[in-house]
């Protein structure tokens, strides 16, 4: 396919295809992009007693999100925290809706963290609850963009009923020679409507080929995946979030349900979450819009207008949809208001910028007709 390959998290990954990052990005926002994200980790958590609450309670010891209230077919975003409340990884958590498997939780974790995630789960799952890693059997692809639903409906019209952050298990057929059993979730990492599709390794080739045969679908590399998620204001692990920050500092407050915000909520790191909520002095992740055309990359120093260091950029580059440079980074609490003037030190020169509301490109999630 002419992909330019780079090493990433121990995998050879396509950073871009012949179209190039800029056009791949715009194509995804206009039509549909297909991403190979099989490097990500896929894990099932289930209890021997086949009681959903047994598995949910076990996982709730490791993540701030409320898991017990998940209905079959629902999905939530959360984070694994260490004892100090630092972020070990961020992940998607789903409760299967397949009859007979409604007690099973399905997790998708970052490639770069998955080995330590699996060890973390292994160490903390109680007797009677198991975490089963399926990376040796399951592939994961993402179809993202305004045409994604139209494209995937050809394979099974039932996907039209999914709304953002729900999923189902079904057969994909239509243009395929033989039906493929798939776990389809309406979610993604671009800010667009779209799907993440988990299928067996032996089926993924045929599915990818059939999807790419559609006029609206192009293969998209890691480069555009990064610029798309940055414009959407979505964190990248190892850059915007890591063990040095809590979910509150990272602006992930929304992912922690109300009754899970107290120090005695009963998960690793809960005390830090509660403390950071109360303490108005900690830093916060914000959007930063450089004025002018010069991108400000990761590790760029952020200063107030008097030249005092107030923070650092953690993701920055050019936003093809925004039509200019965009960035995210941490600043001291008193500088977090949108519109605040700051300066960025790019190659020794102070350049003007403003604190900005995230996202830089509007989210186009499908929340129902």
């Amino acid at each position, binding site marked *: 396919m002419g992909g330019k390959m780079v090493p990433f998290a121990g995998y050879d990954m396509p950073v871009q295809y012949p179209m190039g*990052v*800029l056009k791949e990005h715009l194509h995804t926002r206009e039509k549909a992009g297909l991403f190979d994200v099989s490097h990500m980790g896929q894990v099932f958590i289930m209890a021997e007693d086949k009681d959903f609450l047994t598995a949910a309670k076990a996982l709730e010891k490791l993540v701030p999100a409320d898991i017990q209230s998940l209905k079959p077919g629902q999905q939530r975003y959360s984070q694994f925290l260490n004892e100090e409340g630092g972020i070990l990884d961020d992940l998607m958590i789903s409760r299967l809706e397949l009859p007979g498997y409604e007690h099973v939780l399905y997790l998708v974790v970052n490639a770069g963290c998955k080995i330590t995630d699996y060890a973390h789960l292994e160490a903390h799952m109680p007797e009677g609850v198991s975490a089963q890693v399926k990376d040796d059997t399951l592939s994961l692809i993402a179809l993202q963009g305004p045409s994604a639903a139209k494209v995937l409906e050809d394979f099974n019209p039932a996907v039209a009923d999914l709304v953002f952050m729900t999923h189902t298990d079904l057969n994909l057929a239509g243009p395929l020679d033989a039906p493929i059993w798939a776990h389809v979730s309406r979610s993604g990492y671009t800010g667009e409507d779209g799907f993440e599709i988990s299928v067996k390794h032996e089926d993924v080739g045929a599915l990818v080929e059939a999807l790419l045969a559609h006029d609206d679908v192009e293969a998209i590399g890691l480069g555009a995946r990064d610029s798309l998620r940055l414009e959407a204001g979505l964190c990248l692990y190892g850059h915007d979030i890591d063990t040095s920050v809590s979910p509150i500092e990272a602006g992930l407050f929304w992912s922690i349900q109300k009754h899970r915000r107290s120090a005695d909520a009963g998960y690793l790191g809960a005390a830090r979450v509660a403390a950071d909520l109360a303490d108005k002095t900690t830093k916060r992740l914000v959007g930063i819009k450089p004025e002018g055309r010069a*991108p400000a990359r990761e590790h760029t120093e952020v200063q107030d207008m008097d030249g005092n260091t107030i923070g650092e950029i953690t993701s920055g580059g050019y936003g093809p949809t925004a039509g200019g440079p965009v960035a995210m980074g941490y600043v001291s609490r008193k500088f977090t208001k949108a519109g605040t003037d700051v300066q960025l030190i790019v190659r020794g020169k102070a350049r003007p910028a403003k604190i900005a509301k995230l996202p830089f490109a509007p989210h186009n999630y499908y929340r129902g007709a």
Partner: protein
Amino acid sequence: MSLYFTEDHEWIKVDGDEGTVGISAYAAKALGDVVFVELPDVGAEFDKGDEAAVVESVKAASEVYSPIGGEVTAVNEILEDSPETVNLSPAGDGWFLKIKIADADELSSLMDEAKYKAYCDGL
């Protein structure tokens, strides 16, 4: 007028004691869509191999090194508003800067077009 190339994919077109500097088509293609170019100030002085400009694509920033020592006499202001000119015309309208060559002997260590082509084919 003679044209020379560096191993870092800059070109320099020499006319008397002035050189026009840009990046090769090979480099422009490898970088992908250029979204920003930072140019030096007119009057800046460089030694051969000094960082003279920065070219940014969606995904990364890359340095452009001066192929020769000398003083910058002009920069291509078109690139400030239309950085994509680097991709459209790397050998022409997408030039970066003009430099007053301090020591023409330094040109002898650069590649001519045929050598450079062979060099790129080997990459």
